[in-house]
């Protein structure tokens, strides 16, 4: 967990991210994109992340009190605010029922959404999937529990909750009439989100996903972090969207799930 204090107030919406790098460091070169986990107060934000490579390693090495170079808030946000009808702008049917599907460290993008759903007294159901009991803890399970929303847990090895993938309780939930009009919000590994998108499509419910791709800049100029989107006509300029400024949140039905932006297939 990284907690950053800013000199001024920062207003962040659920699902937005920041580009971060240890101040004055030369390696690695590029800043890393991390979702804002929580707005602790008007000038303090926390980031929950996994150490996966050189960038996150160098952030993890930062001593308490050290300076971080940050660019934020970046990207769009989860459309949940009924009052401004952000949901309808995003083409999402307004609903008071939500299913939030958490896949591992995808939790980082989803806690603020769950906080918002809880505040709005939306009937939100959280499905929390992790590899095992230890990673579930590392992915902020207790913070989700504290929101007192209905919560189901799955782990790959069965060390906590139900054994199996998080898509199991999702299929179960969507087969009940209560959730036939729900909106599904998901963030996690590409394969998981692909499955979630399929299941939501089969149940004819809206599904929003927060995507990840290797990012150069985070503000739209490098055009490196694209995802393939479904187009009706021949491949044209609109075939690729930038995760950093067109996203990171997309309607799942618009994504071409055959093209994983994180690895060559």
């Amino acid at each position: 967990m990284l907690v950053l204090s800013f000199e001024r107030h920062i207003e962040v919406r659920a699902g937005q991210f920041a580009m971060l790098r240890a101040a004055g460091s030369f390696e690695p070169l590029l800043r890393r994109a991390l979702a804002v986990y929580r707005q602790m107060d008007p000038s303090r934000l926390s980031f929950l992340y996994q150490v996966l490579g050189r960038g996150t390693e160098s952030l993890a090495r930062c001593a308490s009190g050290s300076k971080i170079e940050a660019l934020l808030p970046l990207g769009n946000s989860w459309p949940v605010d009924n009052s401004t009808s952000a949901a309808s702008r995003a083409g999402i049917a307004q609903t008071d029922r939500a299913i939030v599907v958490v896949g591992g460290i995808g939790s980082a993008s989803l806690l603020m959404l769950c906080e918002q759903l809880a505040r709005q007294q939306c009937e939100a159901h959280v499905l929390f999937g992790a590899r095992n009991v230890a990673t579930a803890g590392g992915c902020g399970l207790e913070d989700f529990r504290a929101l007192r929303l209905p919560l189901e847990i799955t782990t790959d090895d069965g060390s906590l909750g139900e054994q199996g993938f998080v898509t199991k309780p999702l299929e179960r939930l969507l087969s009940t009439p209560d959730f036939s009009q729900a909106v599904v919000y998901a963030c996690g590994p590409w394969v998981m989100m692909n499955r979630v998108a399929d299941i939501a499509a089969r149940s004819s419910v809206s599904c929003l996903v927060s995507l990840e791709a290797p990012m150069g800049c985070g503000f739209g100029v490098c055009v490196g972090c694209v995802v393939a989107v479904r187009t009706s006509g021949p491949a044209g300029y609109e075939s690729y969207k930038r995760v950093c400024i067109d996203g990171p949140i997309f309607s799942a039905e618009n994504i071409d799930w055959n093209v994983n932006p994180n690895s060559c297939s």
Partner: protein
Amino acid sequence: MQTQISHDPRLAVEIAGIRFNNPVMGASGTFGYGLEFAELIDLNRLGGFSTKGLSARPLSGNAPPRIVETHGGMLNAIGLQNVGARAFVDNKLPLLRRFDTVVIANVFGYSDEDYVEALRILNDGEGIAAYELNISCPNVKEGGSVIGNSPVAAARLTEKAKLASSRPLIVKLSPNVTDVALVARAIAEAGADSLSLINTIVGTSIDINTRRPRLSYGTGGLSGPAIRPIAVRMVQEVASAVDLPLIGIGGIASASDALEFIIAGATAIQIGTANYYDPTITIKVIDGISDYCDQHQVENITELSGSLERLRG
């Protein structure tokens, strides 16, 4: 719009009759259409910038993954995704006119005819100071470095582009050649007004677990501080070979990096990859060059251009 910028008069430079308030520009492909930086820096402070490569028709670019970080740099294989020359003229250029900075339109095509067509569209655009001909993009299968790596093809395109262009023509050189001076001479003789160098260096990176390339295109262009010594050497070689103003590019991330290029023979410089991790880097480099002028009693930055002391030996 009235601007209140007071530029350091020592930093003004001229290339092909175009006056730049200072020698620092944003490099093509890393600076979008300029507008993306308007909220992050004061664009009026820049010497100028070169747009993302513009083609006659919009291009969708390569499939992802398109970038991978390496030590001291990154590989990219974007594949020239761009809005197209017409959309640039109609939608971006009007918004750029309120800024007092030199706008260079970077131009790309798959064939000589494509380049000429893009130039003709851009000729309609008010507010473009010059063209930068991208004959060195390594991330497309036709055009780009296929042309830039051959002195004959590069000279032929330069001649055609010069005829089609209503504005000064800068040609951006490929480093993926054995003798960069040979290509530079051919392009200079064909009528280019200025040369910019270097574009990215072809490289690749392999995922050892999947035994696949990390970039979907297979290879990419290496940029960032790792390539700077190669770029400075090439600027030095080209400066000795041709009598044209040069724009140095390649891994510049500080004022001292920029000054290396200028001393090696560049009149101006462009900053690329560093914009990604520090969007304010161009401003820092401008201020740093002013500081250098203070410390070294430089009255005009043009004194420094090509001032490299040769070692006796």
